[in-house]
């Protein structure tokens, strides 16, 4: 039956995640980890690993729980709602699941098991000029012996500083031939430098200087990097939509709470119609983005084509989340402009996640192509 409400089990996952993150957000939330070198709470990560979060969507044979991508995305939604930075999305959606889909049996056995045990991965897509449509890569893998030698620089690599390995989309052969390589994130030759960015997830500049990569580290066939990158971008975008829907819900909850408590002219500001209309507009955006996110995620988890639905959800969700933040600020007044208030962490997240895996314009352009315009 068409049933757009969560199942019992999904509600359970959601509630358990919400409970944990609400309890830990003080010491592991965006504010608390801002100064942490890793950019996230290693302690909470350990706890999450103990609860089986990284293994939730991995096969049992590798120590996973055999859950689906949809169930995993419920975790991203809650991470967004509580603004708890974590390498879970990068590790799972952009590396582990693409390895599960495209990697060899040996790669799956090694890396998926490692991830289920708490190892983290990151994903490097160094496109020329940061163009989301780009076909090439700024990282070049030259043939060297039985493997490759890597050169080049990538910007905006999330959680690269602490990731155990990097899934790198590199140029092999002509300007458009790409290959996905699993690269140990260890010197010599790999250097990660943290960038100062708007968002709450730590981002890095990663330099590769003559990094030796054995041939068996290619994920999928040599030259098939575009396919692997496609999977990582599609799952990454969809997962980000879940995270954004959660973030937008967090802003709405926080704003409604404020509007009920804050009094002006002798009554709660939430009783003023202009304020009510702001909140109602936020509710429209929140529900619209959640349903869009989950439609695309559900399709992906069923193995159905979802390219269009992912673009719809990302285009809509990216803009909706930013509108929700703007109205949230409006209703909060000056208090929401302070560093002390948590609202800006959501706003930072909205700006950064709108840019992850393509902004609204990028995805709208994909929709025009789909419509045949």
């Amino acid at each position: 039956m068409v049933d757009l409400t969560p199942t019992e089990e999904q509600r359970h996952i959601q509630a358990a995640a919400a409970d944990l993150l609400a309890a830990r957000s003080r010491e592991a939330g965006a504010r608390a980890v801002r100064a942490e070198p890793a950019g996230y709470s290693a302690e909470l990560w350990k706890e999450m690993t103990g609860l089986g979060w990284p293994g939730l969507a991995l096969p049992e044979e590798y120590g996973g729980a055999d859950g689906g991508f949809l169930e995993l995305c419920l975790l991203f939604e809650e991470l967004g709602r509580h603004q708890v930075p974590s390498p879970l999305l990068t590790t799972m959606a952009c590396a582990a699941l693409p390895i599960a889909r495209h990697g060899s049996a040996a790669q799956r056995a090694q890396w998926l098991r490692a991830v289920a045990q708490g190892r983290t991965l990151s994903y490097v897509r160094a496109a020329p000029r940061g163009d989301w449509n780009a076909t090439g890569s700024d990282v070049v893998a030259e043939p060297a012996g039985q493997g490759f030698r890597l050169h080049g620089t990538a910007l905006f690599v999330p959680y690269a500083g602490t990731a155990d390995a990097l899934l790198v989309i590199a140029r092999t052969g002509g300007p458009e031939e790409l290959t996905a390589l699993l690269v140990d994130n260890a010197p010599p030759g790999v250097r990660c430098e943290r960038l100062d960015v708007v968002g709450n997830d730590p981002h890095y500049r990663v330099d590769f200087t003559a990094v030796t990569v054995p041939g068996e580290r290619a994920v999928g066939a040599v030259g098939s990097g575009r396919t692997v990158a496609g999977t990582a971008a599609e799952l990454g975008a969809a997962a980000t939509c879940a995270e954004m829907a959660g973030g937008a819900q967090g802003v709405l909850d926080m704003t409604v709470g404020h509007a009920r408590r804050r009094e002006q002219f002798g009554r709660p500001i939430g009783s003023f119609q202009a304020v009510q209309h702001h909140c109602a507009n936020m509710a429209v955006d929140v529900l619209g983005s959640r349903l869009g996110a989950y439609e695309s995620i559900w399709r992906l988890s069923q193995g159905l084509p979802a390219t269009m639905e992912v673009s719809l959800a990302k285009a809509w969700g990216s803009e909706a989340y930013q509108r929700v933040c703007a109205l949230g600020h409006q209703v909060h007044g000056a208090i929401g402009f302070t560093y002390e208030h948590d609202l800006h962490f959501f706003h930072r997240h909205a700006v950064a996640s709108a840019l992850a895996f393509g902004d609204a314009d990028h995805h709208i352009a994909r929709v025009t192509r789909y419509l045949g315009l």
Partner: protein
Amino acid sequence: MNWEETPDERDFRHEVRAFARERFPVGYGPDPEAEHSLEPEDVWGYDWPADRLSRDPARRAGARAWAAALAERGWIAPGWPVEYGGAGLSAMREFILREEMMRAGVPTVNGIGAMLLGPTLLEYGTEEQRAAHLPGIARGETTWAQGFSEPGAGSDLASLRTRAVCAGPGSGSYLVNGQKVWTSSAQYADWLFVLVRTDPEAPKHKGITFLLIDASSPGVAIRPVQDMRGATPFAEIFFDDVSVPVANRVGAENQGWYVAMAALGFERAGIGATVKFEQVLSRLVGCLRSEKEPGCPGRDTAVLRHEIAQRYIELRTQYNLARHTASQLEAVGIPGHEASVSQLFGAELHQRLARTGAKAFGPYAQLWQRDGAPMEAAFAHMRFDAVAATLLGGTTEIQRRVIATRGLKLPKS
């Protein structure tokens, strides 16, 4: 969460599709001049309540034959129990039924009677009232209009002044005097359900009664009101000493407000509008792609393409909101404030879509005539149809207030 239909639901979809193909009467064509219908479920050019009384015999016969065909399956009032002529369908099947009828380009029948009055009588009516009125609606024989608004009472519905007094001690009837306005399709209706004031002294919500009034009763005068498009989708109604049997009261005297609020709560899923929008948008895309089509000088600019894609994204969002409402109805039994979200979003999308579409035709977007205009001037007309979208069924300001106070539990002002 599951977006996929079961084989049963898919079969049902095919059944509706086949039914529309086989049973839709050939002689019942759309009226090229029609601008009447503002019901989102209705297809352009069809206006079933008007068509069933049309002077054109082919249209009249077609409208009646279509109602009879639907009635055979209980599909005029698909959600009602079978004993009253419904089909006892679940919310999701009712959704699929309406969707497929829209896709097939065939009109729904008996909107207000089936969707508003029926559920109200099922909840608050007496057994006699149900037996007397429901089967006629379900057979497509009687149509109803909703007389709530008055010249002085729109958003503030409870300030209504049409009054009813008991004709005398022990008398079995009320005497009704006053005026209603904006009553959709009242000029075609056999019966009216109206709110009247029965206790002028009581606080305004507590002195209102819900009555069923035969439109042919002496003292009822119904005058169509012309709208900005030149059409007459609604009417004003004058009651001059109209006698209404007490047996036609729904719920207790002075409790009509609560009955009416329930009636307004029987929201439409908003599916019709979505399909209609999707169809017109895909025609627009087709039109822009076939530059050679005569009379279709579309302006295919990058900005326009971007805007069309945005509307498409919104449309799919609206489809999700509508399905979500049906899914909630099925799962929980009542729609939450999400139903208002769907209605509000759909109304505003209607207006955005109309503007985007009109843009595509440059100066040709001002052609009101359908003949020789690009896409038969669909968007020129839609721009004006859409003006009512954010008013009818409660303005979008009022919808937002409902979402804020009932949905988000913000304090009332």
